[in-house]
């Protein structure tokens, strides 16, 4: 069959040029996927179960539907998805040695969602829709970036989107919002190096809003991830046109950084409401840069392939230029060395240095408490290297061992350390196996379509770099699109053959749908409880939520609060105790139990509950006030910190098991 016949059989019209052809269902699907990605990002990056529930349900349902008709998938993609599913199941198994059931269930669901996204991307590639997947993802992220810029320029940005000088955005976390742009940037660069001038122009123009929002978040981690990703893309493709595109993007970033100073100053001095003028100028500069980049992208670009390493003469010239520039900078600015020293010293402190208004966060560097978070995780790995503490247990350990009293965290800000601390060596090994499968899939893909595979690999690298020093893996609205692109880049192994139905995949998808639906429906019931008209109606909703997800500490705690409000203190105290055993922050539930018992006049049990709360978080001053505000109870003076960070005073507390 000729190519024309094949296209005719596929439903396209070869007689018409592309611009005059009606939209195909594949185009509609791509637009729908792009819209879905924008919506998932809009719903706080699908961080909560109310958002990742439907997202996961949709992705898994689509996969189940396709598996009935038959799928042709790369073995590496199937292997990677299997490793992710195994990671989720291992998290569930960890409940037997201390893991928290609700946290384990969440980890299982998110792993299944990621695995399904990877497989769905692979299915799209096998169906010949490889190109549409990165286009859809890029379109979704660009749509959201444009919305952020337009809202800023028109003064209609919701107040919660900014936190000081940082753009938290619709995702609600500046590093995650920045990362979303960082993973899309290689896709824009890849499109900017396409063979078609219109695609090149569109890709280059798309880079401007992505870069603008990335800088607006002032996320140093996301910026570093974007840099590493584009460098990785350049190294993999070694194309001169990609080097030109990268240089243009660096130039655009420099222009935006100059304008960002005014935005930073306005945000810090006048707040988001008073920064509309600066944000408008910033948006206009972005628009101008998009036009310039589009025009540059439309021009014919060099097709030369770069050598693996620069020639010695070129290398010497680069090194010489860098040395001369550094020497000139040191001579012209006497404080250059001191500033460089202060910049590097930021890594050694847990207190983030505050940059003056107009200087932006990019002029400082700090680990923002990560050293402490990593120390606690390493301690957990040393204590139980083979099994870890169990899913969700890191937050419990953080409460007991933290030395930074103002830092409340649930994850150690590193995917690898989180898995090591909670799931032990098998958890890290499963992650490594997943990464190996993805690398294998991308290695094969590089031979088939180097540019597309390099863009997908770069997006994956950005995701991994940021997740290694943050908790951004907890945002399925970012992880799923990247794995969707990676799956689409993979090439099915072996000789071409007819797709075959996969009953095993169908059964697994059906089980995954149940696993995804139950916590989602339970969370919906719990949300309805908070808006119920009467306490009885609220209680009925909470009971329904508990029936669907009996391990949710929030449901137990909410029921406790409802009973406490009705004066049923003993029953409320029992529920709080149950919630404490299932919660990542048990000290809060022990504190609530103490309050209920104290209201019931049960002083001795209330004191015991307070001691448990203080044991679970010795650094929390608030646990020495209110319901636990007995002056003779505190073992250290409120307002001070334990003198012995290893917890010499803590050893006199009763253990939680008592």
């Amino acid at each position, binding site marked *: 069959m000729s190519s024309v016949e094949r296209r005719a059989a*596929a*439903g396209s019209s070869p007689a018409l040029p592309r611009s005059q052809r009606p939209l*195909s*269902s*594949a185009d*509609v*699907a791509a637009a*729908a*996927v792009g*819209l*879905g990605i924008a*919506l*998932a990002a*809009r*719903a*706080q*990056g699908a*961080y*909560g179960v*109310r*958002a990742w529930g*439907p*997202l996961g349900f*949709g*992705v898994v*349902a*689509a996969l189940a*539907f*396709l598996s009935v*008709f038959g799928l042709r998938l790369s073995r590496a993609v199937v292997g990677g998805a299997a490793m992710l599913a195994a990671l989720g199941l291992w998290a569930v198994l960890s409940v037997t040695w201390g893991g928290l059931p609700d946290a384990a269930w969440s980890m299982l669901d998110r792993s299944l969602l990621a695995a399904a996204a990877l497989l769905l991307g692979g299915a799209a590639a096998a*169906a010949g829709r490889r190109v549409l997947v990165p286009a859809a993802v890029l379109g979704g992220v660009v749509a959201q970036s444009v919305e952020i810029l337009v809202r800023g320029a028109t003064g209609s940005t919701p107040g*919660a989107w900014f*936190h000081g000088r940082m753009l*938290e955005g619709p995702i*609600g*976390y500046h590093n*995650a919002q920045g990362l979303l742009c960082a993973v899309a940037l290689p896709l824009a660069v890849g499109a900017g190096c396409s063979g078609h001038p219109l695609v090149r122009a569109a890709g280059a123009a798309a880079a401007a809003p992505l870069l603008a929002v990335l800088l607006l978040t002032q996320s140093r981690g996301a910026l570093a991830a974007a840099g590493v990703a584009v460098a990785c893309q350049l190294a993999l493709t070694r194309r001169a046109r990609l080097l030109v595109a990268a240089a243009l993007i660096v130039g655009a970033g420099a222009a935006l950084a100059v304008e960002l100073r005014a935005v930073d100053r306005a945000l810090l001095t006048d707040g988001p409401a008073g920064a509309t003028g600066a944000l408008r100028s910033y948006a206009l500069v972005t628009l101008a840069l998009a036009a310039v980049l589009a025009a540059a992208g439309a021009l014919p670009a060099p097709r030369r392939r770069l050598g693996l390493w620069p020639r010695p003469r070129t290398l010497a010239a680069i090194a010489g230029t860098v040395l001369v520039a550094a020497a000139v900078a040191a001579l012209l600015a006497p404080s250059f060395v001191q500033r460089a020293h202060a910049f590097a010293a930021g890594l050694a402190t847990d207190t983030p240095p505050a940059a003056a208004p107009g200087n932006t966060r990019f002029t400082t560097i700090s680990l923002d408490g990560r050293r402490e978070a990593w120390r606690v995780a390493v301690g957990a790995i040393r204590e139980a290297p083979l099994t870890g503490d169990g899913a969700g247990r890191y937050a419990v350990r953080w409460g007991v061992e933290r030395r930074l009293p103002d*830092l*409340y*965290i*649930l*994850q150690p800000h590193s995917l690898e350390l989180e898995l090591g601390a909670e799931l032990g060596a098998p958890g890290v090994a499963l992650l490594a196996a997943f990464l190996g499968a993805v690398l294998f899939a991308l290695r094969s893909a590089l031979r088939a379509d180097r540019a597309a595979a390099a863009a997908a690999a770069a997006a994956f690298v950005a995701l991994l770099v940021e997740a290694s020093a943050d*908790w951004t893996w907890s*945002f399925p609205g970012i992880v799923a699109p990247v794995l969707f692109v990676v799956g689409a880049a993979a090439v099915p192994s072996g000789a071409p053959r007819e797709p075959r139905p996969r009953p095993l995949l169908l059964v697994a998808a059906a089980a995954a749908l149940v696993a995804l639906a139950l916590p989602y429906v339970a969370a919906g019931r719990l*949300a309805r409880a908070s808006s119920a008209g009467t*306490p009885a109606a609220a209680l009925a909703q909470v009971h329904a939520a508990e029936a669907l997800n009996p391990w949710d500490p929030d449901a137990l705690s909410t029921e406790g*609060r*409802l009973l*406490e*409000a*009705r*004066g049923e203190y003993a029953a409320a105290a029992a529920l709080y105790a149950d919630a404490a055993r299932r919660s990542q922050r048990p000290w*809060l539930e022990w*504190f*609530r139990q103490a*309050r209920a018992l104290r*209201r019931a006049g049960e002083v001795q049990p209330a004191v015991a509950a307070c001691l448990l709360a203080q044991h679970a978080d010795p650094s*929390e001053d*608030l646990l020495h006030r209110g*319901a636990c505000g007995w002056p003779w109870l505190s073992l250290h003076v409120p307002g001070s910190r334990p003198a012995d960070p290893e917890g010499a005073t803590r050893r006199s507390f009763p253990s939680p098991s008592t």
Partner: protein
Amino acid sequence: MTKRNIIGSLAAALVASFPAAVAQASPNGDQYGNPVQQETPPTVVKAVSPAATQQGSELPFTGLELGLIVAGGGAAAGAGLVLRRATRGRRQ
């Protein structure tokens, strides 16, 4: 229906079913927020008799807002008359 049509319809249905705005706690607040600072003890709600809630000699309001009903009915009747007049010529 071709397989491509099925995929297209499925993707569109997925997007349509996705909640555009899901009210939930901010991820930043969930990760870094101090839960104790937001902690307020639940207020005890005591059962009160209906007689205790009456103030003075006024009877409790148990009916409907008559003004709204009359306004809504009037608007509906007016719209009906206008429609009837507007379509009279066509019917004839």
